[in-house]
């Protein structure tokens, strides 16, 4: 709607100014013999046509800018997700019914080799008080119903968090995505009918780094009557990677509230390490995009997702996320700090192999230099 108004106003002013100029110049022009003076209606049609063309061009350029922004966000989201695969963390799930806490379960979470989150329960649910036979059966049945419902809710949560790039793409393609400012330095992406018809997924994103700040969801279970709302707040690890620290889900129909807290993020020792042997495949053909980095002054793509060095992509993602989400003060301080043994190993590997280095630079150059520009560290 805003887009339409902006487009109309701008184009209208351009067209009308030009029309005035045209009108004034016409007064001093002698019409050559043989030319048929254009009637007012025809002139109006010509200008209407031009107005339409200019409006269309402006709208297209605005649409292009939105698509670029969404694409950058999807890239940042994918990088962040990839970087999170190196971590393990503690998940605490608290379920409350009618305001009363019913269960609290803690699980150790990590990413498995297939990329899915694996969970190991480390705290047992609270012991239940013994009930009479009839009362006990009723309670047991209610508990089963509640458990089924909660399983459905949990599945729903994971369909929205983290947002799926392909679903975002599909929502955008369906014309159900809108981008609007949401305060200083924050953009808001509204995705209508993201998962279910009529639902709404809203993402608050840092305009500069594309880091996720907040997610809100308005959805439902089986029917729109059984509405559920969800609020997700994000926190940052020292490495700059963002993670959903607190998820609050309300199901007013069932008077249930589920709170999921993620904490204690640590590097998972079992996660694959970006070692040199894994990074460099036996045979490789550098792409044109990778070669251009070595050539000064050439344009580079911000990232080359799905390159031939998958583990290197992980390292590059971590570097990009670190730069994008660090404060300028942190970046300045890091310059004077000694590098870890692991970092030195990776740097040495990049120095030894120009092709791997080119692939790495292709991914990190634009976002890193962009951040350094923000922090007055370049040019």
């Amino acid at each position, binding site marked *: 709607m805003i887009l339409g108004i902006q487009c109309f106003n701008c184009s209208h002013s351009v067209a009308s100014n030009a029309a005035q100029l045209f009108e004034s110049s016409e007064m001093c022009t002698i019409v050559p013999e043989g030319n048929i003076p254009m009637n007012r209606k025809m002139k109006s049609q010509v200008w209407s046509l031009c107005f339409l063309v200019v409006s269309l061009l402006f709208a297209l350029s605005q649409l292009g800018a939105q698509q670029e922004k969404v694409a950058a966000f999807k890239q940042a989201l994918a990088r962040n997700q990839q970087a999170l695969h190196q971590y393990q963390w503690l998940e605490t799930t608290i379920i409350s019914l009618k305001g009363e806490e019913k269960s609290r379960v803690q699980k150790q979470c990590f990413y498995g080799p297939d990329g899915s989150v694996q969970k190991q329960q480390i705290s047992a649910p609270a012991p239940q008080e013994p009930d009479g036979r009839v009362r006990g059966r009723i309670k047991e049945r209610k508990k089963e119903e509640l458990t089924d419902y909660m399983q459905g809710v949990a599945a729903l949560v994971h369909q929205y968090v983290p947002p799926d790039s392909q679903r975002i793409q599909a929502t955008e393609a369906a014309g159900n995505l809108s981008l609007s400012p949401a305060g200083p330095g924050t953009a808001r992406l509204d995705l209508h009918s993201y998962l279910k018809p009529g639902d709404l997924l809203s993402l608050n994103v840092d305009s500069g780094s594309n880091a996720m700040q907040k997610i809100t969801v308005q959805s439902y279970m089986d029917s729109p009557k059984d509405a559920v709302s969800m609020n997700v707040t994000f926190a940052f690890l020292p490495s700059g990677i963002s993670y959903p620290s607190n998820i609050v889900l309300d199901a007013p129909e069932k008077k249930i509230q589920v709170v999921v807290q993620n904490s204690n993020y640590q590097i998972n020792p079992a996660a694959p390490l970006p070692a040199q042997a894994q990074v460099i495949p036996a045979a490789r053909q550098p792409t044109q995009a990778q070669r251009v980095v070595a050539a000064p002054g050439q344009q580079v793509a911000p990232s080359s997702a799905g390159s031939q060095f998958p583990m290197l992509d992980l390292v590059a993602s971590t570097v990009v996320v670190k730069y994008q989400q660090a404060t300028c003060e942190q970046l300045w301080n890091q*310059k004077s700090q000694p590098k870890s043994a692991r970092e030195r190993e990776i740097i040495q590997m990049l120095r030894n192999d120009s092709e791997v280095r080119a692939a790495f630079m292709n991914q990190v150059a634009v976002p890193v230099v962009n951040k350094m520009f923000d922090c007055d560290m*370049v040019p």
Partner: protein
Amino acid sequence: MYKRSFVSAGLLCLLYLSVGGAQYPVLDMVAQKVIQKYQQATCEQLWNQKNQPKSAKEQEVIQMLRSDPQMRAAFINQVAAPVANKMFECDMIP
């Protein structure tokens, strides 16, 4: 008259297109200068430059880039690879 009107309308559209697709020739020169500066400087010079104040002209250019995201993107696209390469050589990144 009819023909002239069409020509005028066409020119207006062309003007829009040329303004929209401008390639910032001055900016290209600035970018080339920055690239040259980074490529020709020694690592020591680059480290020292970090602590030196920027000239008024440099500040003006930086301010201009900050106020125009499209121009900034065009500039960063040009300088990112050579600047990042040099900074990597000088152990200034990652």
